């Protein structure tokens, strides 16, 4: 009897374990199936949406170009104190000579110039000019110095054999990379270009003599000897040569900019997009005359909120009207609401131009009706007013649709109940109907606001200078100034701002209360 019960209990326990396993398996199958169903979309979004966004976000802090193009200069500037008003030493000028000689061949001198120009206007021309200027700099002393040491230094093949020793490449990395670059460009061999010798001369200054001596290669002795005889090159003055190309090379700001923006990741773009810049003691605000973006950000925000509010005020009654029509008629009216989508956005925006401009329909009409004087025609376009009017019109359907779909689901019996309980029409609306449309108001507002804050075409066409949005600046930096880093930084900030607003909204209204359909 007792064992019977025990057996039964045990088999029950086993059953329940089995059952759970079966359940898990069937749930897993369901999950896999669900995943397979959404896989195509997921992959599409991943490739066409998430990766580009991630890339864009990364671009706002990415800054490889300086350290890639000017590696020797960057290394050499490490010992230079930017707070000092002295110029960097001769070694730095020799480094930048080697860097720029390679950069000119690679046609990268202007790119690094452009990058640095974002931070300190005027640098771009400096880097453009070196292409011609460098040919005038006499560096034959460096070539002769090494050739006099040993004729093998003329032979790139021999040098390559020597540098294939990993210890040497580690000791003189910049020279190794210069040689390697030259050999790739000149596969037929021969005597390397001057930048290799300048690079060697710079690197030998700081190389450890002991380690050089330990190398078990023929070149070791020559390098030790070269290091001892380096003072023979002291008479060469590349600094003056650079100053002769452009006096600006003698300004510490140039060198400060190079040093400050030499790391591979930078906050420069992001600082720039909130009107700040890197100073000697951390970030600082730009001069008033250079400030721009905070103002535009605030303008974008305020105008988007205004547009959202306007579409709510205009859309709510329309949605209410639609929701209280018989279904057939409501569908017809809904098509009318959606009708604007059938014409191009450009056409709609241009139509507003025709209506609102000073010689436009509305002004003409008011002049005819003598509401305004012919000389006092109103300026309603190419300013904030124009942008708000046109965008409210364009985004209105996005407010009406969610409102309508929420209102449609509210049975009439609620308002009737409220009235039968003694509430006047207004009280019934305010206390019973309106709270139940909050979900629609939330959805419509989020939709319109998020669309508005990133809007581009309409403000571009009717915004003039005072009514443009941050996205217009982003577009400008992407297509005109080609400062993609700054564009990315501005976009990231916009993205961040929207996320913050979304979070605030969630805290106040609750995102579960948002109903789109």
């Amino acid at each position, binding site marked *: 009897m007792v064992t019977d019960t025990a057996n039964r209990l045990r088999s029950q326990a086993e059953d329940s374990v089995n059952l759970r396993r079966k359940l898990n398996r069937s749930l897993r199958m369901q999950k896999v199936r669900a995943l397979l169903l959404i896989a195509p979309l997921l992959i599409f979004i991943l490739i066409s949406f998430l990766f580009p966004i991630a890339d864009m976000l990364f671009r706002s802090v990415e800054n490889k170009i300086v350290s890639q193009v000017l590696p020797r200069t960057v290394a050499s500037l490490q010992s230079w104190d930017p707070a000092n008003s002295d110029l960097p030493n001769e070694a730095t000028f020799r480094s930048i000579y080697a860097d720029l000689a390679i950069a000119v061949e690679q046609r990268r001198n202007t790119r690094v110039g452009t990058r640095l120009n974002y931070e300190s206007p005027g640098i771009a021309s400096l880097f453009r000019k070196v292409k011609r200027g460098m040919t005038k700099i006499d560096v034959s002393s460096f070539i002769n110095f090494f050739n006099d040491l040993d004729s093998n230094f003329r032979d790139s093949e021999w040098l390559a054999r020597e540098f294939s020793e990993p210890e040497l490449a580690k000791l003189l990395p910049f020279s190794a990379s210069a040689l390697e670059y030259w050999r790739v460009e000149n596969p037929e061999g021969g005597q390397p270009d001057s930048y290799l010798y300048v690079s060697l001369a710079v690197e030998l200054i700081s190389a450890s003599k002991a380690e050089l001596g330990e190398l078990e290669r023929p070149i070791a002795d020559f390098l030790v000897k070269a290091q001892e005889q380096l003072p023979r090159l002291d008479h060469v003055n590349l600094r003056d040569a650079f100053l002769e190309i452009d006096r600006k090379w003698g300004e510490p700001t140039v060198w400060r900019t190079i040093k400050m923006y030499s790391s591979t990741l930078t906050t420069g773009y992001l600082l720039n997009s909130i009107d700040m810049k890197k100073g000697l003691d951390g970030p600082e605000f730009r001069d008033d005359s250079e400030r721009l973006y905070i103002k535009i950000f605030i303008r974008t925000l305020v105008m988007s909120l205004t547009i959202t509010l306007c579409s709510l005020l205009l859309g709510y009654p329309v949605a209410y009207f639609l929701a209280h029509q018989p279904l057939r008629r409501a569908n017809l009216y809904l098509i009318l609401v959606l009708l604007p989508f059938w014409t191009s956005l450009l056409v709609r925006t241009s139509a507003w131009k025709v209506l609102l401009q000073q010689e436009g329909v509305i002004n003409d009409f008011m002049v005819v009706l003598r509401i305004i004087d012919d000389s006092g025609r109103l300026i309603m376009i190419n300013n904030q007013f124009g942008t708000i009017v046109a965008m409210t019109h364009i985004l209105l359907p996005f407010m009406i649709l969610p409102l309508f779909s929420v209102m449609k689901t509210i049975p009439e019996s*609620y308002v009737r109940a409220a009235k*039968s*309980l*003694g509430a006047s029409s207004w009280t019934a609306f305010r206390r019973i109907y309106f709270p139940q449309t909050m979900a629609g108001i939330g959805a419509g507002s989020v939709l319109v606001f998020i669309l508005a804050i990133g809007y581009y075409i309409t403000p571009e066409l009717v915004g003039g200078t005072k009514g443009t949005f941050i996205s217009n600046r982003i577009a400008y930096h992407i297509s005109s100034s080609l400062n993609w880093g700054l564009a990315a930084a501005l976009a990231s900030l916009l993205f961040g701002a929207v996320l913050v607003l979304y979070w605030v909204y969630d805290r106040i209204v609750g995102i579960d209360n948002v109903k789109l359909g």
Partner: protein
Amino acid sequence: MPIDANTGFVRFEGVQKTYDGKVLVVKDLNLSIGKGEFLTMLGPSGSGKTTCLLMLAGFETATHGEILVDGKPINNIPPHKRGIGMVFQNYALFPHMTVAENLAFPLDVRSVGRDERDAKVKRALDMVQMGGFESRRPLQLSGGQQQRIALARALVFEPDLVLMDEPLGALDKQLREHMQFEIKHLHERLGVTVVYVTHDQTEALTMSDRVAVFDDGRIQQLAAPDHLYEMPENSFVAQFIGENNTLMGIVEELSEDVASVRLDGGEIVSAVPVNVGAVGERTRVSVRPERVELDERKLPSGAHTIAAEVQEFIYMGDIFRTRLKVAGNEDFIVKSRNASNQTRLSPGEKIKIGWLPEDCRALDA
């Protein structure tokens, strides 16, 4: 309860209603409801019951005629000033408010003071045995609980008149029966006038003082439940209320209180003439299934007998249900109590059944 048409608390006088200008949904409604009465509007779907209720509550206007409450015409009074409590079919509890807020709503809009309001809300909740649910939301309540709250909300501001539109329609059978009694008891206790709409005849019969049977926009009969069941005035009411056997025939002879009808099968039966024309016209003779006796020997004297053939015998526990073929009608039902001496018939048996002439009514064809 005799109601004088001139002193009725609620009066419909010649009310008509059309929604589309073509079809009259309510045709010439005349109805007087006494103070404290429980009146039910019963009728098939689409017969205009809700429309009548909405007109009374003020959500629809009568196309013609007048509605008076307490002697005053209310056609031009907006709904919120009528002071009529209403329970909706889907309860219409405000989903964004708690139970207590729902109940407080009618008091708030009447600017009732806080303490009085809270006391009334509590009393109303206790009345429907829902104390302790104050802070729940309507969606967190079961159907029956929501129903009670809706009831409490319609009563909390102490209206003289409460309208209920199929308030129990969404509940299961057991709960519905339970709630029927609760509503009935509340009505007796509070003495309010109730106009109740349903299409469930059992509900109408068990709860009401009087029942108005609607069909096709007209009141077909207005009477107390027992009267309605036992003395239907036309064949629609006879068939709509309870089960009924009908046999078609032609009036042979007609006097004050008896009509001889020749059935289509040839037999002649006597019936109480209720709604018949002249001699020679067609009529519908109706007999309730439980008033028919299957055993000829148990019939009292003066009863009719008629030949019948058993079609089907159904055992239903407390009763037996026998389907017979009588005078050409194959759906003649007889209900008999499950008693120890009750005959159990089998299909194909040929028997004689009978009923008393006063249980048999001659109605319109």
